[in-house]
């Protein structure tokens, strides 16, 4: 299997504090990779570095062998990385359907003039977009809410819609930032099933940040544990979770 993401020596400091220090990771195609660690360990900062929100001080990021270090968020998305956010960021005043169609923005194109004059191409492509978006919504069981405003969805569904929107950009690598945060056990179980579908049916490579250990041990194949910005442990999920250093970092020294 080929490598989708390769990160070498990624480092960034904020005013003297090394938020991420010498971070390395290799994710293979089709893999479901977990990034865990205590609060403030620098997990979301890693996501922000991967998606170009922050520019790294040192280190290189390769997506399928292509160097994407220092590129803008938009370019990185076009190159093939999509993400969700820890604090949900939906287009609140757009419909559920339009949220996903916004994700299809670069896959289906027509010119501004076509849109304003409503040439036949406008209707054809809009129809295709709607169909594609509805297909995606069906996967997430959101098709019945397609015409709702995104802000009117219940919390769990908002999280799912965010994943659907990211998936709409057809990424090579999907980054999920605490997808189960704030969900009840039932919702978490449903989410685990959905993520499995993404992996098995959509053949997506996924990197996810999560605190819910049940979810992590249940679906992740490999793990990296971050602590104070640096890698504490890396490897197969079962090995990592039994590592004494990891247990110490999570439960304290006592």
């Amino acid at each position: 299997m080929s490598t989708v993401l390769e990160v070498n020596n990624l480092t960034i400091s904020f005013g003297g504090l090394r938020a991420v220090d010498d971070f390395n990771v290799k994710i293979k195609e089709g893999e479901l990779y977990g990034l865990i660690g205590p609060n403030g360990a620098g997990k979301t900062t890693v996501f922000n570095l991967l998606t170009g929100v922050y520019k790294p001080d040192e280190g290189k990021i390769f997506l399928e062998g292509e160097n994407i270090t220092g590129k803008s968020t938009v370019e990185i998305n076009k190159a093939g990385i999509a993400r969700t956010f820890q604090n949900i960021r939906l287009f609140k005043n757009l419909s559920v359907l339009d949220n996903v169609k916004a994700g299809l923005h670069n896959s289906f194109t027509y010119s501004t003039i076509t849109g304003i004059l409503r040439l036949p191409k406008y209707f054809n492509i809009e129809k295709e977009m709607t169909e594609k978006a509805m297909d995606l919504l069906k996967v997430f069981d959101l098709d019945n809410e397609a015409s709702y405003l995104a802000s009117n969805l219940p919390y769990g569904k908002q999280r799912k819609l965010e994943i659907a929107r990211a998936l709409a950009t057809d990424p090579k690598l999907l980054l999920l930032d605490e997808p189960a945060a704030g969900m009840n056990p039932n919702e978490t179980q449903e989410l685990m099933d959905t993520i499995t579908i993404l992996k098995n049916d959509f053949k997506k490579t996924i990197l996810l940040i999560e605190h819910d250990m049940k979810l992590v041990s249940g679906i992740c194949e490999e793990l990296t544990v971050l602590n104070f910005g640096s890698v504490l442990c890396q490897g197969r999920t079962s090995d990592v979770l039994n590592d004494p250093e990891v247990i110490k970092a999570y439960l304290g020294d006592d």
Partner: protein
Amino acid sequence: MRFISYLINGISLGSVYAIIALGYTMVYGIAKMLNFAHGDIIMVGSYVIFCLMSGAGVSPLVSVLISIVACTALGITVEAIAYRPLRGAASSLAVLITAIGVSYFLQNMALLIFGANTKQFSSVIKMDPIILADGKITITGETIVTIVCCLIIMIVLLTFINKTKAGQAMLAVSEDQGAARLMGINVNGTISLTFAIGSGLAAIAGMLLCSSYPSLTPYTGSMPGIKAFVAAVFGGIGSIPGAFIGGIILGIIEILSKAYISSQLSDAIVFMVLIIVLLVKPTGLLGKMIQEKV
């Protein structure tokens, strides 16, 4: 020689801008909103002085004091009625539009009461001019009082903020409203106090402005208000010394461009300064950067 007298005029006008800018910058720093109506409070204050002096024959000093009290009360009232209910609102656009509404309200209220005609404001300051260099430079009493007032206000304000409990509370609220509340600081009270001080300063600014430029209309406050905001941005919004420096520089730029380039284009030049500053250094001379967390 002429240049020096222009420079002095510039510093004088700049001092007025600085006093107005202090109000802007404090409110912006602490309540995180652009109080668009700040300029119109200047106008209200000037009308109060005008009415008391020309209408009722009250002495200048008493008129000014009453005007300060009136403006302070107005500032607190406006904050309580129009701005406080919007604290924590999802849209910052809503707050700005409300402030524009308040500005519009004050202007049209003045228009209804006093009419659109220009009122001749008689100077509050009775002081002989100083004549230097054999009559080549004349410094008017207004100029001297304006500059001295500005310096005193600046020093008092800095002392107040750094040395008193209420001032420290202001700093805390400007850093983080939520954390300040948890520390037992009365956030609403602190913001009210900020508006009170800012509006009181606006009354003083109005008195100084109209003493030097004695025509008073319902729109008197809006242009100086906007220019003072430019000054506050120039100096770095939220910074008190910044507002002072920004105001002085802006006043000098305005007077010099009036004198040497074109009197009609001086406003355009002032606004050009704002645009350049925001593009080159959006945080202004002494401001600090705030970034949105992802």
